[in-house]
């Protein structure tokens, strides 16, 4: 096999231009294939990483529908008190989201304002300023960078918010002071996000009910972790839906991510099919041009298996060289494609569609090996069934 490989290398080197073009073609197709493998799981991996980084491993919502968009959870304070007593739960946080405008600014850019218990673990990472004090007056506001930049705010700046809730804004505006600038999870690149106390958000919309759109739970690893925490919540409140991070990822995979997975599968299949077709044609034309040589080699005594191995090695070299080059090229290409997809509205700024995993590389390598063999099947058959005498005769006549 080593001789066959060395021979195939010499044969390819004989026509360097042709070899280069073939390898470039394989590289382009291989890069696309590699990227589709990265896409098949990338967003899921990215989503899982972000969920795990948030510090909360169970989320509780009122219905099976999409988070935040479904009905709110009521009697939240009582529920928080009861959940706080569970040994499998380390901490619980409530989140109530409202929409608002900044007073005296055009109302085309609405803000998302999250109301939380400021004394509990919070779902953001403070970049500037100090943790907000729930007792402070005016209400403390933590804002994201985009908000600060858009409205020229810094820590200490006063802000007046008008709630956009239900059928009318709250008649009296809400005075607030910027307590800090933070990074919020799941923020889109152009999102205007703020957070304050749950009382302030309730006041923003004139709400009297004790409501939350979602509860965020930190489980106690020593008492069974997230599965135990979720089970305890379901036992205490059967009407609520408690989802561990793993379950959210699974749901995301089944629903929101389904399109990209399907797209990845379809494009992988189509890319492989046409790549194989192109390489098979290239190899077949190459073999057809060398039939005289091959017949002469067979006449000299090279066995059928030997000349077939030569074709297989040629295929392996094309695909091997192109496939190896495809990995870094695919990596670069994936950045471009990732940038395109991340420009979709509502996509969190730190989400990644194309994430490198060892599994993707393994699948890429396996597909290339299978591809090299399949692409060589027809040309190998040509050389295996080559009639030596007739070919030699034909070569002489031609």
């Amino acid at each position, binding site marked *: 096999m080593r*001789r066959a490989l060395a021979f195939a290398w*010499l*044969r390819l*080197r*004989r026509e360097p231009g042709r070899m280069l073009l073939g390898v470039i073609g394989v590289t382009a197709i291989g890069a696309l294939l590699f990227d589709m493998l990265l896409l098949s799981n990338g967003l899921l991996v990215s989503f899982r990483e972000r969920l795990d980084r948030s510090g909360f491993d169970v989320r509780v919502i009122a219905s099976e529908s999409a988070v935040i968009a479904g009905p709110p959870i009521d009697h939240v304070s009582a529920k928080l008190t009861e959940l706080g007593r569970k040994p499998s739960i380390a901490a619980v946080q409530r989140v109530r989201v409202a929409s608002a405008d900044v007073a005296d600014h055009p109302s085309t850019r609405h803000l998302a304002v999250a109301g939380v218990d400021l004394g509990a673990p919070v779902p953001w990472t403070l970049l500037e300023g100090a943790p907000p004090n729930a007792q402070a007056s005016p209400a403390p506001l933590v804002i994201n960078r985009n908000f600060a930049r858009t409205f020229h705010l810094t820590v200490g700046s006063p802000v007046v918010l008008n709630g956009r809730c239900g059928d009318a804004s709250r008649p009296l505006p809400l005075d607030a002071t910027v307590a800090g600038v933070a990074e919020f999870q799941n923020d889109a690149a152009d999102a205007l996000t703020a957070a304050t106390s749950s009382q302030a958000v309730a006041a923003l919309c004139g709400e009297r009910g004790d409501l939350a759109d979602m509860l965020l739970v930190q489980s106690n690893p020593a008492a069974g972790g997230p599965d135990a925490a979720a089970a305890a919540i379901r036992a205490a409140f059967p009407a609520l839906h408690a989802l561990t991070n793993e379950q959210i990822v699974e749901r995301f995979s089944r629903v929101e991510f389904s399109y990209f997975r399907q797209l990845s599968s379809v494009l992988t299949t189509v890319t492989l099919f046409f790549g194989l077709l192109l390489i098979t044609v290239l190899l077949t034309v190459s073999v057809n041009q060398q039939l*005289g*040589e091959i*017949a*002469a*080699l*067979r*006449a*000299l*005594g*090279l*066995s*059928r*298996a*030997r000349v077939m191995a030569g074709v297989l090695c040629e295929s392996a070299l094309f695909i091997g060289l192109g496939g190896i080059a495809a990995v870094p090229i695919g990596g670069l290409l994936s950045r471009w494609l990732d940038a395109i997809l991340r420009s979709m509205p509502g996509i969190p700024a730190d989400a990644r569609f194309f994430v490198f995993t060892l599994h993707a590389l393994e699948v890429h390598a396996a597909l290339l090996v299978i591809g090299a063999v399949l692409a060589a099947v027809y040309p190998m058959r040509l050389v295996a069934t080559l*009639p*030596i*005498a007739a070919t*030699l*005769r034909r*070569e*002489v006549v031609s």
Partner: protein
Amino acid sequence: MTVPVVAANAVSRTFVMPAGAVHALRGVSLSVQPGEYVSVVGPSGCGKSTLLHLLGCIDVPTAGSVLVDDIDVSTLSDSARSALRLRRIGFVFQRFFLLPMLSAWENVELPQAEAGVSRAERRQRTRELLEYVGLSARASHRPAELSGGEMQRVAIARALANRPGLLLADEPTGELDQATGAQIVSLFDRLNADGTALVVVTHDPEVAARASRSVRMRDGEIVEETTRPCC
């Protein structure tokens, strides 16, 4: 009684074409003794090359049998016939069929490598063969850099790589001018003098005349055999 290097016993070869069957050989018998020099002559289409292909185990007869060193090749598998060609038979073609991406040296070395000869032995043998054919100085040149005669000499060296007992040549001087052809023919004389059995298919009467036995064919049959008095 010595065993013939190769013997064809009443071989026939029929090619089935769309326009109808072509009987290229009809019951031809020919045996070649070790060290014998046989030429096969005849008009185009008389079956000379077909006979050579059968003797060289490149093709199989429709009827009859071919024995190489007393082994009926029809009983052998394709890989066994390949092995036979690699070690026992050398082939020289009209169009040389040298591998263009290999140098003269590498072309001669190729069959030895396939036969599993060690590197040291291959080096020694290749040097000897290129010297034998007078091309030591052109060993590193590719076929595109050689003249027709030089290419044919490399092809002959390649055919002799594994010390075959039989060399088959199909119109070896067909693509060469007269002077170059004469060089090749002289080489064949030397080979034969050194003990290699030769079967040469040729149109050229001067080439044919060098053989100790000449076989004339017509319409797929041997019509005349002439033995040159002693050689």
